């Protein structure tokens, strides 16, 4: 029990997908101009990561490992992820057209969001149980969502700040991201200790 808790904290905060592993940066910079959008993206990605990692675990165990098809891992994983993304896209379009419009191109692009594939591949390397891998994936995506929302809040304030022209836009956003990553370093050591 304690192991699971530590692993989840580690996945969400210490080895944060965005700030420590530098995965999913395209959506991190792309859809964090507003808190609502970032939260929606976080939710969508959480769903995709959790569902696809469950499916991927099954594929890995019952298909790839069972028949020695390790070389098909990337292809099959992407297939699973793409389907999950399609499903999410359909759902969001139905449930919240405004969020669908705000996420725009970034929604289908979850497919190529390296955070999703990255987490799936990390799981394979970690050789975890089904529950463990599902929890790990869920915690990772929660960490992703948390950082997305925090960053969106910071950028909303940045939009109102009088940033010098030289730094306005992406440059200052990257500086903020680096400072945020620095702050998250405070958590390092939790999962090991």
């Amino acid at each position, binding site marked *: 029990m304690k192991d699971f808790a530590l692993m989840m904290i580690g996945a969400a905060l210490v080895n944060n997908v965005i700030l420590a592993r530098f995965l999913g940066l395209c959506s991190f910079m792309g859809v964090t101009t507003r*808190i609502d959008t970032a939260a929606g993206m976080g939710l969508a990605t959480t769903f995709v990561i959790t569902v696809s990692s469950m499916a991927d675990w099954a594929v890995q165990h019952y298909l790839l490992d069972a028949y020695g098809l390790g070389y098909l891992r990337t292809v099959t994983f992407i297939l699973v992820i793409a389907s999950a993304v399609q499903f999410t896209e359909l759902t969001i379009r139905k449930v919240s057209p405004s969020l669908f419009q705000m996420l725009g191109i970034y929604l289908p692009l979850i497919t190529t969001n390296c955070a999703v594939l990255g987490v799936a591949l990390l799981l394979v390397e970690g050789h975890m149980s089904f529950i463990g891998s599902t929890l790990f994936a869920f915690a990772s995506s929660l960490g992703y969502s948390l950082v997305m929302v925090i960053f969106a*809040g*910071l950028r909303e304030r940045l939009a109102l700040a009088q940033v010098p022209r030289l730094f306005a836009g992406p440059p200052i956003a990257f500086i903020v991201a680096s*400072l945020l990553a*620095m702050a998250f370093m405070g*958590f*390092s*050591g939790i999962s090991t200790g």
Partner: protein
Amino acid sequence: MSLHSIPAPVSAPHTTTANTVSRVMATVMLALAPATLFGFWLYGWPAIYLWVITVASAMLGEAFCLRLMQRPATPILMDGSAALTGWLLALSLPPWAPWWIGVLGGLFATVLSKQVFGGLGQNLFNPAMVARVALLISFPVQMTSWVGPLPLDAVTAPGPLAGLLITFKGMPPGLDAMTSASLLGFAKTEMSRGIDLLQSLTQAPALSWIGSRPGSLGETAGWLIAAGGVAMMALRVITWHIPVAMLLGIAVPAAILHAIDPAHYMSATTHVFSGGVLLGAFFIATDYVTSPNTPRGQLIFGAGCGLLTWVIRTWAGYPEGVAFAVLLMNSLTPIIDSYVKPRIYGRDRKGTALEPVK
């Protein structure tokens, strides 16, 4: 009558408070002064040099940026915010740290965490804490080498010249023995060696109200820092919300877990009086720019700072967590501000109009 010379309309109000930004900064500096002077006496000349270097570099960094942006530097420097940033940073450094720590920190604070955002009021993170964390991550050895107090009037204390040597050429071998860990660092190291607190704290550096123990300038004289903070509250520069919430945020969980397992968790008093908690609660977390605006938001912010400090100290790798906790809560400030708002007259908390009641 030459009233036609009056320029374009000036909007009401036509009168204003005597309060100014420089006055606020000056008040904060005054509140910091007693603790700083006490620290100078405690750690001698190297501490004084480091303080001067840090404050000067912070101001230099600001002036440099302002020149680059072709804005007048002198009036903006005169508001005192850059000096205050450098001052707060200096108070959080090991007093005998080498000169380049102060220079790098000061420059980092005003250039990378303040001026690139557009200067005073635009930054998202507390500049002093950004600089401290950046230094801690980059130079862990220098940033964790503390010396025991060596008051100015002590025989072994370095004089003005020897102090210069320590700051600029590093610690002479003879004085190397002086370095020791701070209380928090010591406890953490011992814990990792499998020695629990019940044993390690008996030989730990003495915890004392007077502040006679290894630590930063702002760590030792806890009671002077607290007095400065209370004075700021009395002068209405800050409100009680953040300091009280932060102290409770760290004291409550510490007290509970200490009561359960004193061998692994330090007591609430140890937590509150060690490290930068008091300095953080009164002077750093209360930074206007990077903390929430509403009283309720400030309570959440302060409690978060306290709790995160305690979590990092207790479970994470670093012995001290105030700087990290403040930065983490700084990052949450915009979100707190957008969800915790005051109730508007004639509306409920959600913003819908009240029902008329006869």
